[in-house]
């Protein structure tokens, strides 16, 4: 009995630690006036409306969402053929590309960011919005690459053989068997990359920081030059988006499997 209580208490403490700053931010975000006060003085959802009404915040929101949508799409476009090739072919040297796909995520982000800064500056495209999309795509390509590799590993190869005995050529097999089976992993990979791109600061800042404001850049700039409760409401908004996206993945897919709960080499 005490054992169970202790366990509950431990879960509660960790949960509290993880939730506390977010609770405070959520509280601050509903202040009526432009106060940094908790518990909030008065109640108002104006600061949430501000995200969409204030032209500057709205611009940053649109920029962030466009960036995340396109970066995640490019990341998936890179990861899908690569993961497929690695699953389909025996070509040990091609694993170098897998390593290249994982490296940007493992290295300290500042390094990748600085690499992009020097590259785009040398190439003469520094500050162009699309450079941020490509940079984010490379930075987050790890996520769809990992989810898709897991997805491919989970496909029973006899399904593919069965399709070919029934008259399907490689292309048809890909379209009618492999892609439908891989789709949940593709969507998860896209969603992971999307959420992380939405929140990413340093790469965006070093590539387009002086010409374009994404929401994290906007929050940071606001933090340096003063305080506005919109920062708090945007933060809560972002937590909500992340929770929603991951919640959906958990609802329609197996998030435990995606996070490695089951061995990927089941066949």
């Amino acid at each position, binding site marked *: 009995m005490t*054992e169970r209580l202790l366990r509950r208490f*431990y879960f509660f403490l*960790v*949960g509290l630690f*993880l939730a506390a*700053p977010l609770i405070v*931010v959520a509280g601050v975000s509903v202040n009526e006036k432009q106060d*940094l*006060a*908790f518990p909030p003085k008065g109640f108002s959802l104006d600061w949430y409306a501000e995200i969409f009404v204030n032209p500057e915040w709205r611009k940053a929101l649109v920029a962030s969402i466009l960036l995340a949508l396109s970066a995640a799409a490019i990341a998936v476009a*890179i990861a899908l053929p*690569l993961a497929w*090739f690695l699953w*389909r*072919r*025996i*070509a040990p040297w*091609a694993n170098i*590309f897998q390593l*290249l*796909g994982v*490296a*940007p995520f*493992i*290295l*300290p*982000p*500042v*390094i990748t960011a*600085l*690499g*992009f*800064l*020097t*590259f785009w*500056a040398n190439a003469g495209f520094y500050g162009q919005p699309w450079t941020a999309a*490509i940079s984010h795509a490379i930075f987050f*390509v790890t996520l769809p690459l990992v989810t898709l590799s897991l997805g491919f590993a989970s496909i029973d190869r006899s399904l593919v*053989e069965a399709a*070919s005995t029934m008259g399907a050529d490689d292309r048809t097999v890909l379209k009618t068997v492999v892609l439908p089976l891989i789709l949940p992993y593709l969507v998860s990979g896209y969603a992971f990359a999307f959420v*992380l791109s939405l*929140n990413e*600061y*340093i790469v965006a*800042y070093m590539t387009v920081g002086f010409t374009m404001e994404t929401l994290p850049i906007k*929050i940071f700039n606001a*933090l340096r030059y003063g305080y506005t409760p919109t920062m*708090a409401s945007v*933060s809560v908004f*972002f*937590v909500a988006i*992340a*929770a929603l996206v*991951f919640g959906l*993945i*958990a609802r329609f897919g197996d998030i*435990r499997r995606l*996070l*490695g*709960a089951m061995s990927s080499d089941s066949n």
Partner: protein
Amino acid sequence: MRREPPRSLADYTPLVFPALMLTVFFVIPFSTMIMVSFFRRDPAGFFKPDFVVDNYARFLSLFFGNVLGFSLMLAIIVALCCVAIAFPFTYLLTKQSRKVQTVWLVCLLSVLSLSEVIIGFAWSTLFSRTAGITNLFVWLGLMTEPQALLPGFGAVLTGMVYQALPYTILVLYPALVRLDPTLLEAARTLGASPIRAFLNVVVPALRNTIVATLIMVFVFALGSYLLPQILGRPQHWTLSVLITDQAIYQSNIPFAAAMAVFLVLMSLALVGLTLLVGRRENAG
């Protein structure tokens, strides 16, 4: 479709786009950065092509030594705290029902994906005088007057543990969830209490996992670039912050690049060490 070696050039087509993208936009930028680390700073623009080792020579200063020492120490403390909190937590989590696990994983992923900017802002609010936790303590009668808990080392450490904890749990999760439950049951039938069994069976069985996780979290913490800036004083700045600062605010990209190269080498050495530990785990 069985795996087979590529037979014709056409079989390589799927590889073309990924290979091109990763080479052009990762290998080349990375090489560019290494190249730039030997360039000279140009106050008028970004940098001037040259070959100087001045940028690396600057590492030898006392200031740089302090920053490096502080960065390493901070990352080690963060890694130790995270693993100490996360290991028992993850272990207990894997004993919960699938539904409970899923809910926790969704929450952890949501926190993990949070922008460092938002984490920094959230903790600076929690530690602030006007909206901070001290108000709660005053209300409880533990303190007479609310006060700001930042900037300071405690704030930096708390923020970084907060940032790295979900990461630590998710790194530990696969190893713990796949741990053979009969191992523990065997220990229990032999008369060990749950806590004893955990300490005597689970921890030793996963010793290498723990070491590998420590290194991964250490590298993760080394990459923290905003929290020391938002929650700390200048003496709490880490190498990552310094790189950002040199690159953006001091416009000394060559020096930033040299530090980045140094940081890469250090991270790579540590990741290599992780792989080595992992291999020994598989072998043994």
